[in-house]
């Protein structure tokens, strides 16, 4: 084991934590992000994590980003406008939407990365509407494939910053059905097994209790504390008697991220 170092950023810690959830042979879905923090959370950290896993314990992991299967992620274009995506000549296949939908419902994807303005105790997500669905106080963006990820992907990962208004007792609208009301409710509703497996945030990492399916703290980052974590949540998750500190990146993992995976600093932008 390489010597541990404290000299790492929260983004790098999130990359390493996500990479450790990925397995050899996995097919990973990474979505599109816009700019700034949204890009880092939706694309930057997931891509860096998937690349890190490929370079360490999961050489046979495949990445599907946007509509590109196995793009050469050493050559990400400087801009991501339509033309750069159209002419980036490095993907093994350019899927159409029908292929991607079939791959989802056939159950071909192992991991997806998802995020939402509202996440509840049982890992249900809301990206559709705040308040009443038909007369919302704030209409959001709809569903996209986040619904399909939670229906079909084996181990969806939620990647987001911990915020009180995000982590709510109950989502206003279920866009993505996670563990629904907990217990066996997901299976009782006729859904396939699965549901979100981990919630990786800037302050702590959560899982879902094996039986009750309630969100539970798995570890807290060295830079944070239980007090701070609970202050950023509108519900109290399950808290174990002894809370481990999130495993720090190794020197080798940091070297791979900084020198090989993101040397231009375009993935972990903010």
């Amino acid at each position, binding site marked *: 084991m390489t010597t541990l170092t404290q000299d790492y950023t929260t983004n790098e810690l999130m990359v390493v934590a996500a990479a450790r959830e990925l397995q050899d042979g996995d097919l990973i879905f990474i979505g*599109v992000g*816009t*700019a700034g923090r949204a890009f880092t959370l939706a694309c930057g950290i997931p891509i860096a994590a998937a690349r890190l896993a490929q370079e360490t314990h999961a050489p046979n992991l495949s990445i599907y980003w*946007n*509509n*590109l299967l196995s793009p050469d992620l050493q050559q990400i274009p400087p801009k991501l*406008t*339509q*033309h750069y*995506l*159209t*002419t980036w000549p490095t993907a093994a296949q*350019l*899927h*159409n*939407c*029908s292929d*991607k*939908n079939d791959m*989802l*419902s056939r159950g071909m994807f192992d991991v997806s990365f998802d995020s939402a303005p509202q996440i509840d105790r049982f890992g249900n997500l*809301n990206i*559709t*509407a705040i308040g009443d*669905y*038909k*007369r*919302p*106080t*704030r*209409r959001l*963006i*709809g*569903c*996209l*494939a*986040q*619904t*399909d990820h939670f*229906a*079909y992907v084996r181990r969806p990962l939620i990647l987001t910053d911990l915020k009180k208004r995000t982590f709510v007792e109950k989502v206003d*609208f*279920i*866009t*993505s*059905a996670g563990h*629904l009301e907990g217990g066996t409710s*997901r299976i009782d*509703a*006729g*859904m*396939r097994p699965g549901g979100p497996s981990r919630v990786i945030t800037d302050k702590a990492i959560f899982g879902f209790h094996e039986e009750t399916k309630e969100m539970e703290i798995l570890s807290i980052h060295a830079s944070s504390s239980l007090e701070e974590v609970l202050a950023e949540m509108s519900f109290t998750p399950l808290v174990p008697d002894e809370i481990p500190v999130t495993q720090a990146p190794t020197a080798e993992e940091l070297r791979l991220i900084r020198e090989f995976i993101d040397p231009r600093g375009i993935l972990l932008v903010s």
Partner: protein
Amino acid sequence: MKSKLVDLASAASLIPSGASLTIGGSIIRRSPVALIRELIRQEKKNFTVLAYPAGFTTDLLAGAGAVDRVEAVYEGLFQFGFSYNFRRGVESGAIDIRDFSEVAMAARFRAAASGVPFLPTDAMLGTGMAAHNPEQVKEIVCPFTGRKLHAVPAAETDFTLLHGYTADEYGNVQFPVARDADDLDPVMAKAAKRLIVTVEKIVPHSEIVKNPNLTYIPHTWVEAVVEAPFGAHPLSCDGYYDEDEEHMYEYQRLMKEERFAEYADRFITGPANHAEYLAEALSPARVFELSVR
């Protein structure tokens, strides 16, 4: 084969107020924007819009107060942010919204394309989309396995409006070889009752037959074809031009402040036709900057 080539105004005049429309393209890519501007110019309204991801075209119609109902997987403008007109429409109750996941909405277009009344899907079990839309998302039991599923209805609309790359006068529409991952335009085209396609350029039939494998919409599906260069502007048309970021940021600045009328004066109802729009919206230098050919 008979010629189906018409001008933009004639194509739009086929579509009455109150019609249901499937609009192709994707958010900020290759949507029939010139045709939507012409519908607004002709003061058509009360549309129901079906899309895969809705985007700029739906927001324009919402700005004009011309849309009553939307069924789609997403409404927004991607890197340019929220779809403000649409959002205000839903929040005020003026727009009836029916959300579907990507798998479920694609199943609806496929059902229409293959002529069956519905398709089964388990994508939306346990979700709010199912709970809030019992008339379109109905629980069924698989007759073979006994599994719980949803039936979602075929996405049948009065008209289907697409923007494409090249076509001949008969309506054989072709892809370029280098293009982005395709969205659902070919499925929507096959599903159409009445299909209107605008294209960047009308080419001789002899050009089409050189590469018939690139024809994704055959003439037999098409009612009218229109030549509309920069017909997706300010959106992108992959292989032809990139999205016009300056125009989009200015659009968003105005929409955020509820200034659609001002935008429409300058870019929709002010110009008498698509040629006048292009003169107003695109300087020769800007055409050169956006072109990627």
